[in-house]
């Protein structure tokens, strides 16, 4: 018990030195061609990024990406935002992802996270889980689950970021 307490004190010290949420951790994921890439390569030239964790077997995830896809062209023109969709499909469904996303006609930037390394590093518990990353690479907002209409709120925040405003 003493050890537990000591550990908690140390953690609180750590908590005391937290800065605001910042950049994405450096983890290895794969692109659709199965090539290993590092997540630090995910940037959008100073413009906002929507980081979306999903899977081919997750129906609400597919709904969310479809809803974003329907508005993507407009969103890109207005704000320059980029959607980075990371699939947590494991080796059972991983090789299907490329034909799946093409079959749906989605045009996002896709990555594969077959052993959930990136999902764990971002502390995602369940999919869908969406993050908003500002032009400087800082994580400024996150949301779990998807309800029809959520993409409208997401876009309001994207527009704010694109203008250089802060999100509370």
């Amino acid at each position: 018990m003493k050890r537990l307490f000591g550990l908690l004190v140390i953690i609180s010290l750590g908590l005391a030195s937290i800065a605001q949420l910042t950049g994405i951790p450096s983890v290895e994921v794969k692109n659709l061609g199965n090539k290993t890439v590092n997540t630090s390569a995910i940037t959008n030239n100073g413009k906002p990024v929507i980081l979306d964790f999903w899977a081919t077997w997750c129906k609400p995830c597919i709904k969310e990406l479809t809803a974003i896809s329907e508005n993507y062209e407009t969103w890109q023109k207005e704000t320059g935002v980029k959607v980075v969709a990371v699939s947590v499909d494991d080796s059972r469904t991983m090789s299907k992802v490329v034909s799946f996303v093409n079959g749906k006609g989605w045009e996002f930037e896709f990555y594969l996270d077959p052993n959930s390394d990136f999902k764990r590093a971002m502390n995602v518990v369940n999919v869908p889980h969406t993050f908003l990353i500002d032009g400087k690479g800082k994580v400024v907002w996150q949301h779990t689950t998807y309800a029809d209409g959520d993409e409208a709120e997401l876009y309001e925040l994207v527009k704010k970021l694109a203008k250089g405003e802060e999100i509370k």
Partner: protein
Amino acid sequence: MKYKELFLSLLVITAMFSSKAQNIETGQLHGNFQTDIQNYYKDSSIGANKVPNEIVLMNSYANFTYTKGNFKAGLRFESCLNPLEGFSKSNDGIGFPHKFITYQNDDLEITVGSFYEQFGSGLILRSYEEKTLDIDNSLQGFNLKFTPVTGIIIKGVYAKQRLYFSDVNGNSTLITGPGIIRGVDGELTINDLIKALEDKSTQVIIGGCFVSKFQEDLNPTYNLPENVGAWAGRVNINRGNINLSGEYAYKINDPSSDNSYIYKDGQALLLNFSYSKKGFGAYLSAKRVDNMSFRSNRDATLNNLNINVLPAITKNHAYTLNAMYPYATQIAGEAGIQAELMYKFKKNTLLGGNYGTNISLNFSRVNNIDKQRVNDTIEIDQSGTLGYKSDFFKLGKEIYYQDMNLEITKKLSDKLSVIISYMNLIYNYDVIRGMTGHGKVYANIGIADITYHISTKHTIRTEWQALFTKQDKGDWAMALAEYSISPHWFFDVYDLFNYGNTENKVHYFTVATVYVKGSNRFQLSYGKQREGIMCVGGVCRQVPASNGFAISITSSF
């Protein structure tokens, strides 16, 4: 324990450094939290005859990760007081079983402590966690990743596997399997290695791995190999719209309780092909598995101490009735294929309508492998012998599983969209569930999933499902209604009704409310849970029948 002291001191040093920070980057602490609490009522109509003495059971855990510069340290707090029904009662420890420190720079990453790792598709090594399945075979030891030049990645592990986190006489202890695992993996991205090939449209990636496990032979009857080695080689080729990948694994003799102590070697082959472009996707996959159980304790059972994972080749179904008879990989031996076609009819075409139509057609089939006797005096799978012979290119005659599924997604108007699904199923109940006397189940399943947008933020979604079969428990019907208010609320009610059961027509009725704020989710539900199996990725867990209230909270910070 010395290990704990060392870890604590390192954590203190890291924290001290952070409080001195002025020109050193400030550290960050992030994490997540999940808890599931359930109570149990006696309900003989669904087979929940015995309720746990505690009445209320709970599974919780919280992850904390502290990152600063090149260092990362993590802790996971776990407490199941006591584990939920259907989860292993041996995981009743309270404390921090999972801890690690990672050092990372441009070329190198070293992790000591608890970690997860996968080589290739996981055919000879996959350590992962899947909380809903009660699986956590994390490795305890060290993990190294090294990139000597761009285009070469080398990984190494030297570890033991987690079995349980148990309360042993009042002390919470992380119990590992007896086996020691040593593995190395190399991956070469040819186009990065050879400058001349950098911009070619054909991209090639090759990889190979070797894993060896050591377990002492304490068996009085047989002379068992203490060091068992397994190899795997893989290739990935992409060119424009085509993706081709293949992986082959081989394991030397490894008599275990999984294979009745036979001395046969093991093999697995996985092949994937896809051709796709915007609006169209075609996918084909083939798989063969022969005696590939690989555990860090040859006597382990259920989902304990698996070093590898052999993915199921069948489609992962999300709808309740489509997933009522799920497939589980038969590691003793199976051969199968899966094919999928996806097409998007563009809007303003005949079949596309005003908004476009998505159509998806999927087929999968798994058979046993052909097993022949080694010679006239040895029975197939006879313990202490070579077991059997199996021609690689011959298919067994027994069908394990087949499904054909058609799914159409269509937006009918601004407010209304619908998903229609039809599935035809053949399910070898005896083999997949490890029983006798049930034979095969032949079923047809129809589903309609209708979403209506009442306004921008208010949506009502209903699901209508029906399963028709003459075997097992007969026909089922399911109806679900979900009312959501973006972005915070969900109200669900659903009923699963076994109307075709001549002995016991049961309603499995559930009501749930969900509140979401940012990355926090709270769920309160009440209902009757059907006894069955829950599967994720071809690995399954028995879910017992239960009746009660459940609270589920998840949070990421």
